[in-house]
């Protein structure tokens, strides 16, 4: 069996694609040699992830052309050039790419990288042997770019991993001190398409018309310069002192936050999978998400789906129901737990690894 190496654009702790790649690596090693390479590697992961810049030398040393499993989520011209320069087989695992338009306001280079990523998808199309999308939504995007026979396989992701993290004492203390009321949670990158502005608007409606002492935590990585400032100013101008933005959390801190939260909500308008929805269900939280992209299939009927056109008042009513209505809370918890059991039982890392290995063995 040929070596099955994965290549990512960037690898960082807590990143869903990185976590998936590591899980998939473990499964792929059952079929042969497997490593994970990344163009940008966070220092904390240097012991796990190899630099993609060394990929050529690594292959030369082994004198065997591997299968390259490329995780596509953003453009990386140099990386793509180096992969296309090699004669070996390519597997594309598509995780979707953020819409670049709103990113343009804050980071032109990042917006350009996202556009470049879509162009790269078109360029490598003819070289890809196997195409995997982690949702039907993502598969549809690839089909529109000309990819035939896209296989849909859920993200090889362990939703229970975070729940095994111990609580962080400082974060526990902070939450106990600062939160005095029902707590809503959003987890996700601070990016425009996550529509945190809508979330803030909905929270504004919630505290104005329904639950004045509700709290909201917006937890995620600060990906765009200045975007957090804009969100914070919006919170300030709306006098929403009970809503806070927290960035740069560790797994232990995030687990602590999930444990403290009473409900989870995301109003994102573009999702290729939406890992936090499943994490929240693992922690027993009722979940509401906007019915966009891959969210309905990720939720699988275990949460409240907010219609795409619904406004902040509707979202606020969904928030209220999750916080205030015992029947809704309990119903969603039970559904969520069942969804997580089902997801785990399917063992997606093993299934994806098996499909890839079998394809090339054949």
């Amino acid at each position, binding site marked *: 069996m040929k070596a099955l190496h994965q290549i990512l654009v960037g690898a960082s702790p807590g990143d869903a694609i990185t976590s998936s790649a590591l899980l998939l690596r473990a499964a792929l090693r059952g079929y042969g040699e497997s490593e994970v390479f990344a163009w940008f590697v966070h220092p904390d992961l240097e012991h796990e992830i190899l630099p993609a810049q060394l990929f050529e030398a690594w292959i030369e040393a082994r004198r065997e052309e591997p299968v390259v499993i490329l995780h596509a989520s953003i453009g990386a011209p140099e990386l793509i050039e180096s992969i296309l320069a090699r004669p070996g087989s390519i597997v594309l695992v598509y995780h979707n790419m953020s819409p670049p338009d709103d990113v343009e306001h804050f980071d032109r280079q990042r917006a350009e990288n996202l556009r470049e990523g879509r162009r790269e998808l078109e360029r490598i199309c003819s070289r890809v042997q196997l195409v995997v999308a982690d949702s039907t939504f993502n598969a549809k995007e690839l089909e529109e770019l000309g990819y035939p026979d896209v296989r849909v396989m859920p993200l090889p992701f362990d939703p229970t991993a975070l729940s095994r993290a111990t609580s962080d004492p400082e974060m526990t203390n902070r939450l106990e001190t600062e939160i005095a009321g029902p707590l809503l949670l959003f987890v996700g990158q601070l990016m425009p398409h996550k529509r945190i502005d809508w979330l803030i608007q909905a929270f*504004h409606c919630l505290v104005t018309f329904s639950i004045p002492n509700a709290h909201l935590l917006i937890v995620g990585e600060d990906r765009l310069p200045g975007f957090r400032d804009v969100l914070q100013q919006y919170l300030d*101008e*709306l006098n929403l002192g009970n809503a806070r933005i927290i960035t740069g959390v560790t797994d232990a801190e995030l687990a602590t936050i999930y444990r403290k939260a009473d409900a989870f909500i995301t109003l994102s308008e573009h999702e290729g999978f939406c890992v936090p929805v499943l994490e929240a269900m693992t922690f027993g939280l009722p979940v509401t998400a906007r019915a966009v992209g891959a969210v309905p299939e990720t939720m699988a009927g275990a949460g*409240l*789906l907010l219609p795409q056109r619904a406004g902040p*008042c*509707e979202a606020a009513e969904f928030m209220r129901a999750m916080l205030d209505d015992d029947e809704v809370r309990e119903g969603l918890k039970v559904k969520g737990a069942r969804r997580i059991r089902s997801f785990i039982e399917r063992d997606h890392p093993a299934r994806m690894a098996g499909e890839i290995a079998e394809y090339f063995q054949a």
Partner: protein
Amino acid sequence: MDDNFDPEAVARQLQNKVEERRAQGELPADLEESLSRHFRRIVEHKRRFGVPAPLRLDPAVSRLQELLARFDRAIQFDPSGVNVESNVPGGKVFHRAVTKVVKRPVGGVFDQVANALSIVLEMLEMLTRAVDQMDGHLRKQVDSRLSLALDRLSDFDKDVSNGDLHLLRRRLEALEAAEARRVPFDALDLPLELAERLRANEPWGAHSTQIVEMIRRSAPVLDLRAGSGELVRVLIEDGVDAAGAEGDGSLASLAQSSHLPIDHATPLDAIFSRADASLGAVVGRGTLDRVTHADVHYFARVLSMKMRGGGIGLFAGFLPEALESWAPAVADPAFERPKSPEVVAEILLNADFSEVSVRLERGWYLLTAIR
């Protein structure tokens, strides 16, 4: 629970509920659009200028802030803004008299008005802040609170028209009418004995030997309401360092014509002009009990300050129920009805006097206090 619970059905119910609230007008019509506009403004500013957007001030808001500043100055209640002119003879004198009569109730009213206005000021400041940040979605919240504030102020206005302030205004009008009818009280128009009697000088006459004995070793002595100077004369003739003050110019002149050291001054002015801890004895007839409630505490504290330790104070006055207590009021609408000796004693004790004792006689009392 799991089998019966249908998230899709719940989602539909929740949406319907919002639609019902919208139909009932519970949610502002432009709420969502104004919220979005608000966010777009922040983003657009950040995109263009790279810095946070400043708060946008509507011209009406600026005007409101100006008014707020004027309001802030207005509630300082500058005394120069109080009209003391009068069309009736006596002008300022009359107003001074009226002020004495109504000082306490008016003071109480002003305390309450000042308190209410300071709360109104704070309320307006908060409303202004809310308006500063107001976009369409905040309008309903601010509107409801503003309506509430206006309702309260409207109630206050009714109270002013119908309540205590209105009664106070009526009383002032009645006093003004009384002032127009007033016959100036001139002691020389009365027989001297009656004039002295109305100043509660009788105790000194009946008990002068006893009183002189009490204070002769506590000189210097100041008689705060010396009248024609009868007591001062007795003390001086007995070799005691004594002086006096008399508020009635006629009586003061009469005393001075007898070469007695009697100044034409009010009791308060007389005591205030003395050096601290300089007086060994102070006597007063119809003094502490005749000043207003607002002034009497101040008067007692000044007395305490001007007397030396161990000094003696003798204060005589008519009992409130005595006929003499009411007599001057017939002619003088500004007349302060005497306070009871118990009240005066309590005030002196609070002003650091000790060993306060009261001797009651028929219709009058003699109060002794040691500094």
